[in-house]
């Protein structure tokens, strides 16, 4: 892995951001809206129910962490789509750039942009809605690592989808986090899911994070082993997504798709 090509991919993202500050808006606008919406819903539920559950911590914390995972995926996919939209594939892939260097550049760019989103979410959620991470503080690093890892895996997979099925397939990519969220048990315990959904949930690292988060917030003991399993699972999924991207790339080179990648749809 050579640092200069990776730096080139990052520099390009920086230039885009600097050249058009409007691009910065999605980094925090949607997460800000989510935090405000769920902040008031949580506050309302806290005031009208006597269930003994801290809705602000459970719901708002879940929204914040799940949004972070989605932001990582979308940041990576958007960075990839910049090359699709500007029809830059030929210039990129006819250069000495290697695929791992390209993907690493995209991953670092997405992590950097999602960090900005995280900062905005914390600024809104902690002082305005009184969200406290005190109960989670010892394990927050592990949770974030798992969610970042899963977001990266989803982003690489989504980019592979766009490369395989053409630019029009970007509309299949954006709803992926929403499609997965019921299986990840973001807002409810895994026990409420039917057996077949629970089976799928075991393959999704975020489900372990949200189970762990709820356990800590409700004063139950935290099981470290499942969390470490989730981390290993996220790492494995990154490797699998990377493998998938490379396979799709090689197919695109073999069939000539890469050289003429500008069509609206690709068969």
């Amino acid at each position, binding site marked *: 892995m*050579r640092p*200069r*090509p990776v*730096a*080139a991919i990052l*520099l*390009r993202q920086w*230039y*885009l951001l600097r*050249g*058009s500050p409007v691009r910065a808006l999605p980094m925090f606008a949607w997460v800000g809206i989510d935090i405000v919406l769920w902040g008031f819903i949580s506050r309302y539920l806290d005031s009208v129910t006597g269930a003994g559950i801290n809705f602000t911590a459970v719901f708002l914390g879940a929204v914040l962490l799940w949004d972070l995972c989605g932001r990582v995926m979308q940041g990576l996919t958007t960075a990839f789509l*910049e*090359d699709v939209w*500007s*029809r*830059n*594939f*030929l*210039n*990129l*892939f*006819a*250069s*000495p*750039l*290697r695929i791992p260097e390209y993907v690493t550049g995209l991953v670092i760019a997405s992590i950097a942009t999602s960090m900005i989103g995280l900062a905005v979410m914390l600024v809104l959620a902690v002082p305005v809605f009184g969200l406290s991470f005190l109960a989670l503080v010892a394990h927050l690093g592990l949770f974030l690592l798992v969610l970042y890892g899963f977001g990266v895996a989803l982003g690489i997979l989504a980019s592979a989808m766009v490369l395989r099925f053409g630019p029009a397939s970007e509309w299949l990519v954006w709803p992926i986090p929403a499609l997965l969220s019921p299986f990840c048990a973001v807002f409810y315990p895994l026990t409420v899911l039917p057996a077949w959904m629970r089976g799928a949930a075991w393959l999704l690292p975020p489900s372990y994070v949200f189970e762990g988060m709820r356990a800590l917030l409700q004063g139950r003991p935290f099981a470290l082993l499942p969390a470490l399993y989730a981390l290993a699972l996220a790492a494995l999924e990154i490797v699998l997504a990377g493998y998938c991207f490379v396979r799709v790339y*090689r197919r695109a*080179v*073999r069939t*000539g798709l*890469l*050289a003429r990648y500008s069509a609206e749809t690709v068969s």
Partner: protein
Amino acid sequence: MVPESLHPPQPPAPLNARGQHPGDSGAAAALRVHDLRKNYGELRAVDGVSFEVGPGEIVGLLGPNGAGKTTIINTILAVLTPSSGSIRIGNVDVARQRSRALARTNFAAVYASLPGNLTVAQNLRFFGLLYGVRALRRRVEELLGQFTLQALRDTKCGVLSSGELTRVALAKALLNRPRLLLLDEPTASLDPAAARETRAAIRSLARDSGCGVLWTSHNMYEVEEVCDRVLFLSHGRILLAGDPRSLPAAHGARNLEELFIQLAREPLAHPAERLA
């Protein structure tokens, strides 16, 4: 310089572990293509093409639309895998050491415009980093000066005229001081004065730096002026090769354009028949 003859397909020599052919020296051809084939199902887009581009040589790749020119260029740039055959840039085999081979190559093509949302200078810095150019800041300034792009350095490429874009694409193509330069209709969007300057710049680049150039164009006047040698391609095969100034007379044509039209109209003959 390859003599005025056809280039019958040759089997590729075995490669060593470094992707080099045994006996390669430092003065290797800038580009060596051996028995290149590319099939799309039943369609043979490139059918056993072999040729070389020597250091400092400018070779014109000519042929009607669909003859296989772009397919050959794409395989050299490793964005298209050939069905068989080998391509070496200098001593480096493209299939085995893609990144190393492409580090000494660059290209400009009308269908590969640079990102329009970056400025001229940003594009040059971005691609300079991708190609691992040393002393990048100085190199960018040199190229901005060479292609009179200083006034446009902070202009986004998306708003440039096609002539200005061509100059930026050529500046990008020279960033890494390539040993092999692929130019696909490099002067198509330039006015006559700019086109003449560009041709002169490429010629002096080839002469002074020893960079081999593979040049495609439909402008036969330009080809005759610039190229040391031309390859006529039809249906994925090389029909004729030779000096663009003497080939027309040798084949009963008044000029290169007439020869081009003749060859484009004729049904495909096997190279061996044409050689006879």
